[in-house]
């Protein structure tokens, strides 16, 4: 049983990573065909950096992701603080709202926003309303639930007396938030923001319905590319993105591992310190 699941696990990881390996090998291939490896070359990377299209698209994606994740983090964190104070019925309704974009198929969210923008465009008599702003609104909308669901547990875990203690010691409610509560929920805020950022950076389905010709993100353009044969410089871009995301994830892992190790240490110290009192 144990052996069988180990074999399955190894096979699943192979299954997950083989296609990515194919793309990475393709990025060093002098032939544009993924299937035939002709010879090793760095030309694709050179072509990528000489290319005036892909990098600006990547920049577009980054701009949208950064702004959308920051905005949704601020909006979402504030909302979570409010939800924490709500009565049962109001909280239920708010969490119901929060769950809509999480449960709905992405294509439905995309379609509904596309229709909203079309409707708004008619109302405001703007011909091409689709573009940067519609993309940003859509991204903030689907990011918000992730932020809320990641901050909320931290807030409920927090000892409610901490806020009271801060106010007891002279803090105004605003001071109490920045000096105490923020420190407690910061890990939730950071992981929510990072999650929002990666969701945003890689989003295709929803963006596809709300982008306009003046502002296109990388995943949407890749979709448009894949309708015809791909230039291997896209594989080069993929490889670089893969490495960047791998690096970020490793860094987060190391930070988290160090954090838990520190907590374990201090708990041990606490146990050692007990008999002295």
């Amino acid at each position: 049983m144990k052996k069988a699941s180990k074999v399955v696990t190894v096979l699943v990881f192979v299954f997950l990573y083989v296609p990515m390996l194919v793309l990475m090998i393709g990025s060093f291939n002098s032939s544009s065909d993924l299937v035939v490896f002709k010879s090793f070359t760095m030309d694709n990377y050179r072509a990528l950096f000489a290319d005036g299209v892909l990098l600006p698209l990547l920049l577009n994606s980054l701009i949208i992701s950064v702004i959308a994740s920051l905005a949704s983090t601020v909006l979402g964190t504030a909302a979570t603080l409010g939800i924490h104070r709500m009565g049962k019925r109001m909280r239920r309704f708010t969490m119901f709202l929060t769950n809509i974009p999480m449960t709905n198929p992405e294509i439905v969210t995309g379609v509904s926003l596309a229709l909203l923008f079309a409707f708004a465009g008619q109302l405001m008599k703007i011909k091409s309303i689709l573009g940067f702003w519609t993309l940003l609104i859509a991204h903030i909308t689907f990011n918000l639930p992730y932020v809320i669901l990641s901050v909320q547990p931290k807030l409920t875990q927090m000892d409610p007396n901490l806020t009271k203690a801060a106010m007891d010691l002279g803090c105004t409610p605003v001071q109490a938030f920045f000096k105490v509560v923020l420190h407690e929920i910061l890990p939730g805020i950071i992981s929510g923001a990072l999650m929002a950022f990666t969701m945003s950076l890689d989003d295709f389905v929803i963006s596809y319905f709300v982008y306009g010709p003046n502002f296109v993100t990388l995943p949407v353009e890749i979709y448009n590319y894949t309708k015809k044969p791909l230039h291997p410089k896209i594989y080069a871009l993929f490889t670089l993105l893969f490495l960047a995301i791998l690096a970020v994830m490793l860094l987060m892992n190391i930070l988290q591992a160090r954090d838990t190790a520190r907590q374990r240490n201090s708990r041990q110290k606490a146990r050692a310190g007990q008999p002295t009192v």
Partner: protein
Amino acid sequence: MSKELIRLADISMAYDGEVVLNNINLYINDSEFLTLLGPSGCGKTTTLQIIGGFVKPTAGSVLFDGVRINDIPPHKRQVNTVFQRYALFPHLDVYDNIAFGLRIAKLGEDEIARRVTEMLEVVGMKGFEERKTDSLSGGQQQRIAIARALVNRPKVLLLDEPLGALDLRLRKDMQVELKRIQQQMGITFIFVTHDQEEALTMSDTIVVMDKGEIQQIGTPEDIYNEPKNAFVADFIGESNILDGIMRADRLVEFFGRRFPCVDEGFAKDEAVDVVIRPEDVDIVPADGGHLCGTVTSVTFKGVHYDIIVDFHGFKWLIQTTDYQPVGAVIGIRLNPEDIHIMKRSKYSGMFGDYSSYSAEYDEIGDAALAGESEEQEEGE
């Protein structure tokens, strides 16, 4: 005692229509150690939170030095609080935790350092400045929480079940320690607990509460020796409570016999509650006592035995250092000063009968109580 510092006048409090405090009137003197004592849900924590400013009463006024402070937010009140489970800031070390309030008040760092050091000495935690709070034991965290509150030189320190999370040994040490700190600082302590022994040990004044109402206010001795009703008699220590009739001043009748006592001022033939503390009963040979009964159970308690004695179907708890076997027939004597008479109240008949007594019974009851109080905290 010295002058009055805090007064609660006709305070009532309701959450969503549910009354948790009903017309509370109470004054607290300067430099007093006052304890709010009662079972969970009696309103003691709410009373404390009203004084701290975390809860606004639905009716009545809170006066501080004669000034109404109902609308003053917590951060502007001259009181500080030691919270349940301490509420130390996990992101700050011991020094920064204690310095927190002083930094909010924008004191100079020299002054802060001086006062923090002084406070660490008072609570006996010098040398722990750089420690993270989660590396401290419960007792140490407790001391830091006290230091963090006291360093702001409040006129009143509020303590919300501060010893609840400590084990028995540590709790006893901290009781003595808290009393010492209170006397050293010379300020008012308002202490909330459901532990009667804790209240008796530390307090100058005890306020016994139940169901949102004050049942009795008095010194520990008053409360123990002269309980006002069956609830107080039962909650503070163990009591046998019987139905009696006051035949005249200093003469009470129960079990069909008349006993001389020391209470007076009741109407002739008024129905009353009679309290007899288990440790006040003298055991004598069966033929030499006022009453004669059969031992039905014996529990060894270390210092004494708890024995249950059946008198004509009514069971008493008696504490004695002399072993009596089950089935023994014994007599008891009651001296006039061992009999305490109380007016009838809504609590009459609810307490003080040991017919269903078992040694484990109390502990089970306590555990249920502790569980409830946890839940109540979450709800607030």
